[in-house]
């Protein structure tokens, strides 16, 4: 679901941005969108620099224009998407619709359908709709109304606030027509996440050596290609006059439409002037640069994190419709509080290890139950990327283990393990090994799994151990193949 949402969002952004400026042309200007926005902001005095400096930067850095005018759609899309970072978002592990066995603990910032202000992100899964924000996101959204303070003290404060994340999950099935209303009745859970250890910010000073090493290693292919393009352009009188004309038009622009028109005109008239070989080299070298850089970002993104999560889940009977209340188990009328500690760190080689520990308790003790925790659990997961096992494509091996002790019945808050609800008290020991084998590059993969559980219902008909073969589709890859 997340991949589908992401792919759809990216395609929509590219389509909208491109269509806005390329009407009647086969030139895709989506890659220039941030620079066009910067020009528009500078025109009204809200840019990162005065208009003259922004015009100078935009026009005298030719690479985006070169790829807009000459690169194939795949190169354009790659460069656009490489300037994004995506993170996992979703309801907490216990919420309905969640597919997470052991949460990876990453606090997401941007994913799914970002709401207009950018202060909140959201995602749907099943009938769950999760909204997530952090104080920094709200402050960022307010920047349009309040002065931007970028002094060090403010940045330090923001760094602390960035460690906090808040989310609310709504279950639309709690109302009869199933539409999202945002009512209190549909609120199924709320959570706060505090990041105790997180060095995954690539701008953190501890990554100085990583970036210095990257700069030494990446080579001069990209700047040399851009140099050769510029030398080729400057040899043509038409280019010199075109550049001067476009700069003049941008500096004199009195509306956003005039900026759009000037940029589109520049790309269209620049295209026949571009020297072909170095222009093609710009796209290729840019992609190579971004691929290498992406590997560095991924290294940073794998550094260890430790998070603490506090979640309150609301029973469906609270303030619910009579129909929903009638379906709820007897005694399910109390909120359930869950505290969870999540530790994720790189393991051997390229593998990642996640460890979760959590405990839950009812806010109001249901009648007939002993005081204390409803359940406690500990889980661990090891994700091991396998490169070319037995000559097959890259695979992913996952080993997950979980121990849950249910002291009290779930009472409306079932604990789901492997997609199956745990409804009875007592211990559950669960172990699963899964190998996901992609079949070519088409987005089709076969997951093979072996599962052990001490309760037969968790191996679905087998006594203790079950083997399973499935088939999955990665719609992102299928879309890319088109």
């Amino acid at each position: 679901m997340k991949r589908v949402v992401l792919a759809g969002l990216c395609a929509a952004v590219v389509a909208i941005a491109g269509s806005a400026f390329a009407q009647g042309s086969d030139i895709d200007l989506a890659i220039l969108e941030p620079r066009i926005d910067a020009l528009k902001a500078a025109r009204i005095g809200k840019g990162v620099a005065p208009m003259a400096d922004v015009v100078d930067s935009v026009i005298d850095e030719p690479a985006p224009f070169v790829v807009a005018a000459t690169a194939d759609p795949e190169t354009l899309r790659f460069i656009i998407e490489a300037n994004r970072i995506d993170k996992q978002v979703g309801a907490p592990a216990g919420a309905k619709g969640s597919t997470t066995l052991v949460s990876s603990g990453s606090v997401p910032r941007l994913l799914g359908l970002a709401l207009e202000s950018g202060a909140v992100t959201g995602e749907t899964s099943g009938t769950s709709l999760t909204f997530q924000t952090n104080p920094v996101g709200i402050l960022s959204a307010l920047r349009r109304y309040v002065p931007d303070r970028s002094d060090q003290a403010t940045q330090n404060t923001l760094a602390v606030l960035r460690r906090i994340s808040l989310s609310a999950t709504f279950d639309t099935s709690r109302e009869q027509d199933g539409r999202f209303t945002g009512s209190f009745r549909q609120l199924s859970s709320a959570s706060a996440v505090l990041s105790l250890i997180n060095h995954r910010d690539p701008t953190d000073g501890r990554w100085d050596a990583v970036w210095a090493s990257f700069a030494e290693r990446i080579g001069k292919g990209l700047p040399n290609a851009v140099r050769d393009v510029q030398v080729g352009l400057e040899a043509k009188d038409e280019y010199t006059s075109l550049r001067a004309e476009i700069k003049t038009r941008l500096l004199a622009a009195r509306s956003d439409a005039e900026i759009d028109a000037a940029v589109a005109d520049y790309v269209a008239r620049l295209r026949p002037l571009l020297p072909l070989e170095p222009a093609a080299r710009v796209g290729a070298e840019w992609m190579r640069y971004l691929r290498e850089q992406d590997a560095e970002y991924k290294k940073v993104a794998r550094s260890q994190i430790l998070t603490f999560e506090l979640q309150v889940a609301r029973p469906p009977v609270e303030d619910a419709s009579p129909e929903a209340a009638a379906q709820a188990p007897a005694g399910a009328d109390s909120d359930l509080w869950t505290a969870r500690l999540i530790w994720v760190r790189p393991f051997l080689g390229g593998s990642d290890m996640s460890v979760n520990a959590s405990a839950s308790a009812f806010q109001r003790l249901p009648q007939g139950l002993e005081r204390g925790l409803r359940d406690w659990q500990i889980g661990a997961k090891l994700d091991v990327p396998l490169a070319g096992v037995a000559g097959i494509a890259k695979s992913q091996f996952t080993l997950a283990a979980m121990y849950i002790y249910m002291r009290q019945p779930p009472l409306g808050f079932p604990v789901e393990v492997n997609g199956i609800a745990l409804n009875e008290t007592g211990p559950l020991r669960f172990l699963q090994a899964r190998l996901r084998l992609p079949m070519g590059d088409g987005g089709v993969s076969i997951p093979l799994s072996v599962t052990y559980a001490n309760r037969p219902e968790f191996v679905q008909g087998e006594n203790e151990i079950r083997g399973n073969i499935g088939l999955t589709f990665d719609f992102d890859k299928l879309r890319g193949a088109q």
Partner: protein
Amino acid sequence: MQVQHDGDLEIVTGELVTVTVTAIKTHYLAIFGDLLHAEWTIVAPVQPAGPDRVREVRSFVAQAPGTEAFAISCDFVRNTDNQPKPGALYEILLKGDGPLVIRKLILPLPPFPAVRPFVFEVR
């Protein structure tokens, strides 16, 4: 060094051109490309130049009349919000034998990296 009426840069054979790149509030990710005809001399390697500033200085001597050119790639490391640090930018200063200093800013405008070419007419 002079600026011609059309904005192009002009230098003379044998002129020493010094290029100073300062990264402000960002990791130093500036990459000097090769010169067309001359060779770079590293005057000062990458080193801190004050709070939140890192600087590198290189120079070259203009060769025979014609065209000289190079480009500098400047990148901005982004945080987990995909944003460079507030206030991040690069400043590039070009100075020849004369008093003129050309100052260019590399602003954090995606897509990254920003690559700035410089073309000189050598007389």
